[in-house]
């Protein structure tokens, strides 16, 4: 097991470097140089050349890539001129809402999607199964931004129950932790429904098909033939096996949730990573773009790694040597 984990981590390294390399290469193709973005219009060509030399822009890009990796290992991802802060600090400022939103919607989808999928599978072709199937098709098909706008129109504009924008009420002045938490929860309610709907629907579909697959197996027939209660058969024997493939889904879910966060945060004006990455792109803040992308790529890889390890633990049939 230990060997398996170590090998998996070693495999991850070239992939991660590959991702960074491609990212760096793409950003290298960007029009304009860092100097042209930050220069004083009164600068003479000589001064520009001097500045470029000082910033190390005259070295070939692959050399700068190696330098960047070296600095990144020390925790220095560069400097965002717009925020007047190091990139890592900017990311630290904005990652909170994104993580909170992603975790809440992941929670919703696990708590609702998986049980609904089990019910759907055990009562295949029943009324409730058909209803849930239609619901899951709607869930995976409605564009998040359109659904978000519909919710905003109905529950924030027409009937003003929920706030329209942001993560906190700017007028709320309280030190009470409880009041603050309630305020944030209130602001995150609609965004988590939007982000949660799609993943709930997908979890439901995966669980349903995985359960149906397992129910057909011989050992389930054996369990029934032994005279076990149907509940025991479904929850102790079938569900435990059906849930294994869903673990893999959890690993792949991180990048999808983070991508979904981009549109959701933009619509609801939440100050998260998704929103600043759109801003960083529109203002061509390359160090920040590179920083965000590399952090997200790392999270994605870690997610896949954790899923693989959990899979190996959960399913003893998998040999990992």
């Amino acid at each position, binding site marked *: 097991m230990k060997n398996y984990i170590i090998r998996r981590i070693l495999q991850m390294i070239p992939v991660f470097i590959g*991702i960074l390399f491609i990212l760096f290469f793409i950003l290298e193709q960007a029009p304009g140089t860092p100097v042209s973005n930050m220069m004083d219009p009164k600068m003479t060509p000589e001064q520009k050349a001097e500045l470029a030399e000082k910033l190390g822009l005259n070295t070939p890009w692959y050399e700068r890539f190696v330098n960047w990796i070296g600095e990144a290992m020390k925790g220095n991802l560069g400097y965002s001129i717009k925020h007047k802060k190091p990139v890592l600090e900017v990311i630290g400022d904005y990652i909170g809402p994104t993580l909170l939103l992603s975790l809440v919607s992941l929670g919703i989808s696990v708590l609702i999607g998986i049980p609904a999928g089990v019910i759907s599978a055990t009562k295949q072709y029943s009324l409730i199964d058909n209803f849930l199937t239609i619901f899951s098709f709607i869930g995976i098909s409605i564009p998040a*931004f359109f659904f978000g706008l519909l919710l905003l129109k109905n529950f924030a504009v027409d009937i003003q129950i929920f706030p329209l924008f942001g993560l906190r009420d700017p007028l709320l002045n309280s030190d009470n932790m409880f009041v603050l938490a309630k305020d944030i929860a209130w602001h995150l309610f609609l965004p988590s429904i939007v982000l949660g709907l799609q993943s709930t629907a997908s979890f439901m579909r995966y669980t349903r098909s995985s359960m149906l697959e397992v129910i057909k197996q011989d050992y389930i027939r054996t369990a029934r033939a032994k005279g076990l209660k149907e509940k025991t058969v479904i929850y102790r024997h079938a569900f435990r096996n059906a849930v294994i493939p869903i673990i893999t889904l959890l690993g792949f879910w991180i990048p999808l949730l983070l991508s979904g966060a981009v549109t959701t945060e933009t619509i609801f004006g939440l100050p998260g990573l998704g929103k600043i990455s759109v801003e960083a*792109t529109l203002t061509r803040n390359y160090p920040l773009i590179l920083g965000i992308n590399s952090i997200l790529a790392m999270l994605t890889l870690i997610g896949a790694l954790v899923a693989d390890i959990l899979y190996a633990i959960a399913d003893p049939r998998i040999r990992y040597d």
Partner: protein
Amino acid sequence: MANNEINDTKRKNNKSAQSYWGEVLYRLRKNRMAMICLFILTIIIALCIIVPWVSPYGIETTNMDDAVRDQRPSEKHWLGTDKIGRDLFTRLFYAGRISLGVAIAVVFLECLIGVILGSLAGFYGGMVDVIIMRFAEIFLSFPFMIITITISAVFGNSISTLIFVLAILSWPSIARIVRGQILTLREMEYMEACEALGISDMRRIFKHLLPNVLAYVIVYATLGMASVILTETSLSFLGLGVSPPTPSWGNMIQEARNTLIIQQKWWYWIPPGICIFISVMCFNILGDGLRDAIDPKMKR
């Protein structure tokens, strides 16, 4: 259910037995939901082709006359007009041409790349396989939305860049499917026969292996249409995909980020939203139906 089984046996005994694809089509026809979706999609595509063509209003024709611009739906303008007097009904279906066109192009490209690389990896194995699959892993690990945004910022957001980027980022999934299939097929006896006959590698891949994978590629492509439409419209909505004045269903909804429009002027943004929703849903259901038709054992 029992009735269907009887029908199936009857058909099997029938001398004029259907070909593989005939069987698939037969099973698909029995799936009422999938057929309804196919019908709706045909209508949407037909409208996208016909409406901008026969409409009395141009796509870009503006009219700043206050009696014409910013009007609610009426007999003259079925879905009203926007701030600069363009007919929104015409624009809606012109946008459909763009959104569906982009999706078709992306799916075609990603399947092309995915099928070629996937079959090479599966057929040759060894180093070729390791290199191609490591690449696939790299592309799969990119934070999809954010990297697309980044690339469109760097290379500008023209439609061709968008198509290229989306295709480049999505080929690994189809490559994995094709590779997996080829790995199993490669071990079958008829492939041994091919080898004994001295048939060239390329011919073995394209003539003897790929036709067996085609069904999976079609299912993947149908479901892929759904996800590409979603991605393109989200990007266009964010202002990072198809950019105005060219309309896409996504950038038409951008208008709804204005409080007045979201509150009072539904005709600006609800119709494109419904169009996206319906076409994505139909592609999803049709893709599911196709999968069941192709592989009845997988019937869920």
